[in-house]
């Protein structure tokens, strides 16, 4: 699965174990709807393949505005709605030199501490 728009790209590979998602560029959307829909599709695919964990690589992600942050929050909400034994966790890989990532993902891990881990902080 892939979503590529002006300025950013999101690629998802469910054939790997664990499944991998890579976000790159600068995600600056004006409305969250389409990204929310995309993450909904990713969620369905991950549930469909029985994933226990997904790795989300943000190391090439230059920026994420708050409107683009909402679909990530919504995605975690979808996982949280699954029966406990059907949930998968999300491991974010961040880059130290991208200074916005640590506090941003730190806050996201406070929102969903049982689902989110942050690597590289």
């Amino acid at each position: 699965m892939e979503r590529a728009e002006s300025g950013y790209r999101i690629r998802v590979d469910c054939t790997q174990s664990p499944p991998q998602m890579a976000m790159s560029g600068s995600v600056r959307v004006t409305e969250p709807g389409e990204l929310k829909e995309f993450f909904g599709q990713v969620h369905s695919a991950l549930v469909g393949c029985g994933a226990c964990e997904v790795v989300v690589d943000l190391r090439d992600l230059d920026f994420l505005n708050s409107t683009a942050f909402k679909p990530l929050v919504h995605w975690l909400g979808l996982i949280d709605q699954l029966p406990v034994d059907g949930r998968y966790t999300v491991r974010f890989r961040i880059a130290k030199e991208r200074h916005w990532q640590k506090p941003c993902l730190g806050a996201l891990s406070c929102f969903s501490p049982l689902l989110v881990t942050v690597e590289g902080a």
Partner: protein
Amino acid sequence: MRKDTVRAGKLSNGQAWMEVEFCPSWGFIDDARRFVEAFCCHSRVPAERATQIAMAAHELLQNAVKYSEDGRAGVKLRIDPPKDWVDLVVENRCTASAAKQLKVAASRLTKAADPLQVYVELMHETARREDGSGLGLARIQYEAQLELEFAVRGRAVSVRASGPLALREQPARKRA
């Protein structure tokens, strides 16, 4: 019609300042963010802090452009190393309903004792709603460690984000 303007300078007391005023354009917001970050770095603000200040500028400008009524939005930034202070102000004119919405969000954010707590609360609400959430403003308070002040006079809106140039350690992660 007024033109888009960019002005910047340095005062003899060590302060550095810049102002950008432009017609609302989503594309320009990211340019403004990069400009603010470069300006901060040029003013010897540490890279990590510069990134946070630039993020705050982006979020404030995003709101200003989204809700601008008369086609103008502007950002003013003042860096004051001797006083260890940064002051970021974004101004625009917005619709009456947007001004009302901002007052509600402002009240909640400025009364919050813990910026992280209100940020996480807004994330929980965001997971359930479609419209504006105030997440960008909460992000500024927590991630950029800047205090917010709001001034709404009729449809004229001014949002100020300010705080020390030095960084504080983020609160430890809370486990449920």
